[in-house]
């Protein structure tokens, strides 16, 4: 089965990409508009794939980093932190005039997202020194998430004073892969590739962390260094995802769990598969969001949430039963 993993993933990618280009609002039969529709759907496809890949790999890495199968960038508040960071960056950009012709918001937003994500992970890493309890970590993640979301609301209300800024911040915080254009993709892509490569590079060290801090140390791992670098690269990935797709939840939880039976647990095998599968998963979710009949389009996060939340509960119950990670 594991030998078929990549052929199956690539086949799914092809199918999902084809559907993503063919399905949606707008008539491809209209010769005048065909090019525009195709381009818009192409950007949307690329954004969804990019965000899905980044969040899925981010999920794999935080699950190893915290030795917690229920961790994911959204559960731990990392995406919310990135989202807040992006808004603050936009806000700061506007406050400082935003007139510089060199720096465009598309460049500043990923930086802000990165900083926000890293701050949220740093809080959790410090927290990890106090207790290794699995549920306590998740609760802290939820609290962080809630805190970042209310701060976001505050930033949005502050931003309303200027109409244009308000619009930009709101559009960003609602988050949707439909809004990303070539410029966002241009800045997010290098982040994605760097993050993916770096996470893969740290894969062997992350394998060691699965045995816990003391055993990892005994096997020669420099545990604090590994943790901080892993957190840094996860932040890069989450920043790339949030800067094109906004705050999309549960991808990092669902995809690694779907993959482990086929790709195994070793990070260097799981990470490339998760990138591919995560991309396919989010593209598929985006298609679902488009085809569900509704007056306005359903946000992407609603679809991933509908799939992810039940899975999260299922895993939580299984975990309590097994007392795994106790």
């Amino acid at each position, binding site marked *: 089965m594991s030998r078929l993993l990549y052929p199956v993933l690539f086949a799914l990618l092809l199918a999902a990409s084809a559907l993503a280009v063919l399905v949606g609002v707008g008539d491809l039969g209209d010769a005048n508009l065909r090019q525009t529709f195709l381009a818009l759907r192409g950007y949307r496809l690329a954004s969804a794939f990019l965000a899905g890949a980044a969040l899925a790999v981010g999920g794999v890495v935080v699950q190893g980093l915290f*030795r917690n199968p229920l961790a994911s960038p959204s559960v731990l508040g990392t995406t919310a932190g990135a989202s807040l960071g992006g808004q603050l960056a936009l806000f700061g950009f506007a406050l400082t005039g935003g007139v510089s012709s060199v720096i465009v918001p598309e460049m500043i937003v990923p930086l802000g997202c990165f900083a926000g994500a890293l701050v949220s992970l740093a809080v959790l890493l410090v927290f990890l020194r106090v207790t290794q309890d699995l549920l306590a970590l998740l609760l802290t993640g939820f609290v962080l998430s809630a805190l970042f979301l209310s701060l976001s609301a505050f930033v949005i209300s502050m931003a309303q004073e200027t109409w244009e800024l308000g619009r930009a911040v709101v559009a960003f915080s609602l988050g949707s892969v439909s809004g990303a254009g070539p410029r966002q993709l241009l800045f997010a892509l290098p982040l994605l590739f760097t993050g993916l490569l770096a996470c893969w*590079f*740290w*894969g*062997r*060290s992350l*394998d*060691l962390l*699965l*045995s*816990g801090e*003391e*055993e990892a*140390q*005994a*096997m*020669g*791992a*420099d545990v604090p260094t590994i943790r901080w670098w892993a957190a840094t690269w996860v932040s890069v990935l989450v920043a790339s995802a949030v800067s094109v797709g906004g705050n999309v939840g549960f991808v990092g939880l669902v995809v690694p769990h779907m993959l*482990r039976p086929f790709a*195994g*647990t*070793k990070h260097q095998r799981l990470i490339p598969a998760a990138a591919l599968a995560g991309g396919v998963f989010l593209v598929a979710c985006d298609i679902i969001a488009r085809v569900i009949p509704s007056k306005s389009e359903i946000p992407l996060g609603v679809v991933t949430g509908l799939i992810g939340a039940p899975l999260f509960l299922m895993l939580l119950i299984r975990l309590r039963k097994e007392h*795994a*990670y106790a």
Partner: protein
Amino acid sequence: MRDGNGGAAVRADDVTVALDGRTVLHKASLHADPGEVVALLGPNGAGKSTFLKAIAGLLPYGGSVFVGENEVSSLAPRQRAKRVAYVPQRSLLRSTLSVEEVVALGRYVHAGSFGGMSNECAEAIEHALVTAHADGLRERIFTQLSVGEQQRVLLARALASDAPVLLLDEPTAALDVGEGLAALRLIRKLADGGHTVIVVVHDLADARSTTDRALLIQEGRVVERGPTSEVVSADPVRRVYGVELIENARIGFESSDEGGQGHR
């Protein structure tokens, strides 16, 4: 440690460890040479495991611990792990890694971050699996093994690092009598092959049968040291454990043959 690697002596002097502000080990000293098995004995909570972890460089300590020429706390993690391998009583690993993958983790300090595994690594893993009698388990999932099987895999993981010093924390604690005997015989064999072995032992009879020298630890202090037969004798045992030692007790066990009971 496979053929061709030199041994390394362990010399710990006045090692003091404080955990949460409480001193749990006072000025403990120990010396172990290649080819020797040294036992750390004592009641529960005496500080045996703490001493072992300090020697492994896993706890901050006062005093000094030398492995060969190097002070353990001054070594980078990778360099330290090339010299000292530590086997915990139980692993905290909960992920679904296969036995072979778990043993491969022991090669971390020798492997680069990129690409596949070198021939040398593959050989070391194979050798470790065979030596620890875990080669029949290689495809199995670690977390689904019995405690005794897991113990063999953890030993194989330690052996895969090729470290000349082996530190074992109660390797026979959760084993049945056959597994326990097999484990002790293996420990003896590893020392005879040139390893320096320091082992925390719960069972005084096990210590007598397998180890060369012993330290008896009570409330964080070494109260008795010397050849195991002298340390595990009537007086010290009465003083520390409050029990009478009966020489030549009526029940004892030994393996029926080299390949017996499937424990090999």
